């Protein structure tokens, strides 16, 4: 469980986060939505300590990040898996080496055991024919999947994904969403996902946090997001005709 209290993050004059508080439960897929530029990435990076918040606290199952020593921070980080918006794969390594990297660094597994585990996660993210390629030699969608594989290979306790399925075709996007939800439940991971994808919101949004202008505008589940009459949320989530109709049908169904 991650508890966020009142975090504020400024860049020079611009205040990107103006005091956001919320909590993310373990075993649940927590989604952060909001317009492009609303601060989702900054929020996620502040949780991870890549950005240091100007004020506020973040606690990982009771461990308050800002109060940990450097060694404790590093130890905590080995429990974290992160999928960056731009994948952030190591371009000097092959796909296989990228995925095996956390194992090589932080476990005492033998090369054979690492290989076995890497093959297992490669299979789970549906990557084919990529083992020995370099990140620059595979497509953007494949890079995303490699990044996901690398994030989950060492069984993280906390999983952060910045738009894990942007750039994926709808079918693979759903596969990835379901994969993330599956492992979240299976290993009781605290998962936080930034997304633009309304499909993901409907499919796996067990908890949704809507950021607007640096503030938490609304939070709730995907069931509740159909019913809310918060104008900012409906305006954002149901901006397409298709989703407006989906919502209408859902609400009519509900009445019956």
């Amino acid at each position, binding site marked *: 469980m991650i508890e966020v209290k009142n975090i504020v993050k400024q860049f020079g004059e611009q205040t990107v986060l103006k005091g956001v508080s919320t909590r993310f439960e373990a075993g649940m897929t927590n989604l952060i939505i909001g317009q492009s530029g609303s601060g989702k990435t900054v929020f996620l*990076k502040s949780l*991870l300590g*890549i950005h240091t918040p100007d004020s506020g606290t973040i606690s990982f199952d009771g461990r308050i990040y800002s109060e940990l020593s*450097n*060694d404790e*921070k*590093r*130890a*905590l*980080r*080995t429990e*974290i898996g*992160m999928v*960056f918006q*731009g994948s*952030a*794969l*190591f*371009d000097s390594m092959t796909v296989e080496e990228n995925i095996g*990297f*956390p194992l*090589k*660094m*932080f476990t005492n597994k033998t090369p054979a055991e690492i290989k076995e585990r890497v093959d297992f996660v490669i299979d789970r993210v549906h990557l084919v024919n990529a083992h020995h390629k370099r990140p620059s030699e595979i497509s953007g969608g494949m890079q995303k999947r490699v990044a996901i594989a690398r994030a989950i290979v060492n069984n993280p306790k906390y999983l952060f994904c910045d738009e894990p399925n942007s750039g994926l075709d709808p079918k693979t996007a759903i596969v990835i969403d379901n994969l993330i939800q599956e492992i979240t439940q299976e290993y009781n991971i605290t998962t936080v996902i930034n997304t633009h994808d309304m499909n993901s919101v409907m499919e796996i949004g067990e908890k949704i946090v809507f950021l607007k202008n640096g503030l938490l505008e609304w939070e709730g589940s995907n069931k509740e997001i159909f019913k809310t009459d918060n104008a900012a949320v409906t305006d954002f989530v149901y901006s397409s005709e298709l989703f407006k109709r989906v919502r209408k049908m859902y609400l009519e169904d509900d009445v019956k």
Partner: protein
Amino acid sequence: MLIRYLSQIGKYFIMLKEIFNKPTKWSVMKQLILKEVDDLIIGSLGIVAFISFFVGGVVAIQTALNLTNPLIPKYLIGFATRQSVVLEFAPTFISIIMAGKMGSFITSSIGTMRVTEQIDALEVMGVNSLNYLVFPKIIALLLYPFVIGLSMFLGIFGGWMAAVYGGFTSSPEFITGLQTEFIPFHIAYAFIKTFTFALLLATIPSFHGYYMKGGALEVGQASTVSFVWTSVVIILMNFILTQLLLS
């Protein structure tokens, strides 16, 4: 302005300290070091050999052409070549060239990792990214004195070739010159400089790459800035060490 420079220098020393914190697993580090030796040391041998041989030759020819007074003995060609190659050309001049070659390679490779968030990815995993990226470079550059040793040898060899085959002097005379007034401490002086420059070559370009901000454009700018600063600091250290050790 001054404050900015001072804070940069402070940041540089904090970085140096952080490099030696929380070391990376030895089995991983070993491979990283071998890779850096390959990229930085082995990869530089060709250009260093080429430059040293020809510049050594030019030094000998220039000296010979300027020794028009028949009273000055010809063995001075060998002497002058040795002094300039061993004392300045190999340690300092080659290091400036390496500030361009190794330095821009280091800054751009670390800078690219910074802008594509690979450094963030390392940190998020709990890796000490400074140790992971910079420490192997420092260790690899412990071999840098061999590069400079090679440069000294080839510089003098080039001088000998040019002097003898250019008909300026005879081989025994040149060799007499090489042995004239040989001061062993000069070799020590040259290698103390080399060693200092090696540390600067590993760390200043790393600093510029590691702390850069922006995108691909800024990676290019950082490489240029890093070259300028590495050479400025090398020249300054050269001056300071020469004052301290020789005067």
